[in-house]
């Protein structure tokens, strides 16, 4: 049992899709290769599927008199679930978050169907060392109900009337069109990406912690997002990236690159000094989180700009200096 096996590969998937049709044209075949394959697969795969005079193809298609390609198989390929996939599903049944997706009855039925399958892992084989302790309670019936309402609303493009408490403690009761659910393993929480719905129009994007939602009411109003998620996420980004200089001291460059690997960034190395200059883009709502994460590197890195961001770092450092040494230089 291996996770790196050709049957999970792009070429097998292409072949299965091509054989899904009794007959196919060369053009349609090439389209499938382009859709399902890698960027350059079209240079390698068509000649293995299309019969070749020298027999170097995979022998899965025959050319018909009309020039079409006919499969030699009789059925559209159906890939059985592999043992690895079943073991993975069985393992997932033990993760608390699974309760959000499956009802208790469905979970029991799936568990029963996989009763002879050994899970790929058990929860105690993994440990997240620095996850926050106040994670959401995924077994809470209200939370589960809200989660499912949101999933359906995203799928159907339905506006929801949501009552929730904001981070500042304010109670808000407004209509929103949800478009994505974000999970953070660090926080153990889900947040809902949504757009405010007002007078028939969508405005701005916001994030609501699912744990702060008190009530969701379906409105029956359906509408499209009008803008793609990528555009909406881009609109939330900082206008100017943070620029940081990371020194090689204390293995700083490697540590920084690992820790900030999840950010979109551009880096450049100065071979003379070993310092790396990084530009890093972030969601404006995460600015404080980014700031404290950068400060945790101590003097190994310096925030060069933008000036307002650097000033916030300087303010915290000055305050800390005063606390430790009793005065500011």
């Amino acid at each position, binding site marked *: *049992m291996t996770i790196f096996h050709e049957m999970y590969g792009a070429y097998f998937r292409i072949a299965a899709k091509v054989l899904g049709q009794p007959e196919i044209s060369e053009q349609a075949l090439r389209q499938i290769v382009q859709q399902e394959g890698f960027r350059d697969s079209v240079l390698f795969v068509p000649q293995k599927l299309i019969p070749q005079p020298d027999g170097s193809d995979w*022998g899965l298609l025959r050319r018909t008199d009309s020039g079409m390609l006919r499969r030699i198989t009789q059925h559209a390929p*159906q890939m059985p679930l592999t043992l690895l996939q079943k073991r993975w599903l069985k393992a997932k049944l033990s993760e608390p978050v699974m309760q959000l997706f*499956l009802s208790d009855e469905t979970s029991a039925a799936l568990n029963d169907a996989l009763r002879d399958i050994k899970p790929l892992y058990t929860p105690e084989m993994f440990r997240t060392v620095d996850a926050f302790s106040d994670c959401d309670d995924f077994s809470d019936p209200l939370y589960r109900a809200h989660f499912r309402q949101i999933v359906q609303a995203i799928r159907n493009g339905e506006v929801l009337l949501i009552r929730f408490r904001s981070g500042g403690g304010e109670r808000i009761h407004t209509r929103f069109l949800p478009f994505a659910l974000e999970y953070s393993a*660090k926080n153990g929480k889900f947040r809902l990406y949504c757009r405010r719905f007002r007078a028939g129009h969508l405005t701005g994007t916001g994030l609501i912690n699912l744990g702060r939602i008190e009530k969701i009411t379906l409105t029956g109003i359906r509408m499209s997002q009008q803008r793609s998620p990528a555009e909406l996420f881009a609109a939330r980004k900082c206008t100017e990236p943070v620029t940081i200089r990371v020194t090689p001291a204390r293995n700083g460059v490697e540590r920084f690159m690992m820790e900030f*690997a*999840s950010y979109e960034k551009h880096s450049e190395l100065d071979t003379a000094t070993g310092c790396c200059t990084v530009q890093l883009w972030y969601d404006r709502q995460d600015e404080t989180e980014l700031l404290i994460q950068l400060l*945790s590197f101590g003097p190994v890195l310096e925030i060069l700009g933008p000036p307002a961001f650097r000033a916030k770092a300087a303010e915290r450092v000055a305050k800390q200096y005063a606390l430790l040494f009793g005065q500011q230089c």
Partner: protein
Amino acid sequence: MAGFSELIKSFDKTRDYIRDFFIYGFKRRGDFQRRSSRTYDDEKRRAESWLGDVLCADDSVRGRQISISVDCGHIYENPLCQAYCAKSFTDNDIRLHMLLLDLLADGSTRTLNEIVDGLLDQYDAAFEPQTVRGKLKEYTAEGLLITEMRGKTAYYRRSPETTQDFFAQYDGLADAVRFFSLGDRFGEIGTELLRSAGLKNEMFLRKHHYIVHTLEDILLPEILEAITEQRAVLLRTFSAKSREKADAKGGTFEAVPMQILSSVQTGRRYLAAYLPAERRFHAFRLDFIRTVKPADPVQDYNNLADAYRRSLRHVFGVSFAERKDVRNVKPMRLTFRFDPQTEDFIADRLQREKRIGTLSRTGSDLYTLTADAFDPNEVMHWAKTLIGRIVAVGGGNAAVREKFRRDIRRMYQMYGGAPHDDLS
């Protein structure tokens, strides 16, 4: 570039290059000295083919550098899962796969000879019985086929369950797989399940998402199996500084695996294991492990596991430190100042982030966190996220306390404009 293939036989080299493209993003062709330029060119072209637009080439003053630039919090599919879709195979492998599954699609049960004959009769495909037997054995192990012994004869049939059946039968399962396909516990398996059912994730996102972990998953099955079977493993590792070879700091270790540790703040994953030769626990970075091989069963595994769990009470992050260090370390005591009326969010932060520490109110606006950790450096790395609030640092050891004070002085100079000393 003659002989170039998008597919690969083994994962090692690719894992290495993709990781460097993704993590560093500033390396040029000349920086990849551990293998030939030809290898670099092939790996780069392969990465370009697999990853498409997320692989960027920038012209810097040092030359052209390759990077994988992804805003990992806003992607619906982990692009690095593509590496798992690139296993090489022979023409016979794919032909036999498609024909075998087609032959057995009707649910019939057949012997080896009947299958060999069926392949010839129905598809005009002549395969050696030995070749077919090998594939039947392999596919039985992978779960695609079910083998029944009737007397001395083996009968084969196709496993009846498909992904589509499961998704149709268990309401909510497809969404669960969409969600888990981005996770760091074999997300690539979820991605493959979705693809095989013609589905996509267009709903779930992950914050604090370290997509590079998927490349380390290749090591996990052996490790998890060893934990289940209470076996040791042989690890081949490399050090950070010379990843191209097994050097003095790297090498081979016999280790008794305990747990996979992951940090959602540093982006690293580790194998926590007992080292019999050194009689201590140690956390190996997964990205610095080359290979894992099963070794002998461990008789006193349960006792070691108990000792491991006891040790965890003193592990703030992943460091078990060494015993000689532990003797010199006292519990860290960090005192924070904030206004409980207007800044209660700091109290919330301390409460949820204190891990093994205990928190107590030591003044009207003072809270003290005590953490009896093997490695006080790990506590201090976290404490620096609370810069601006720390009134006093006690316990630990003198070096750690002094390092913190020195760092704050340097940072103050750094942001105040005054020159600062070199770091040590």
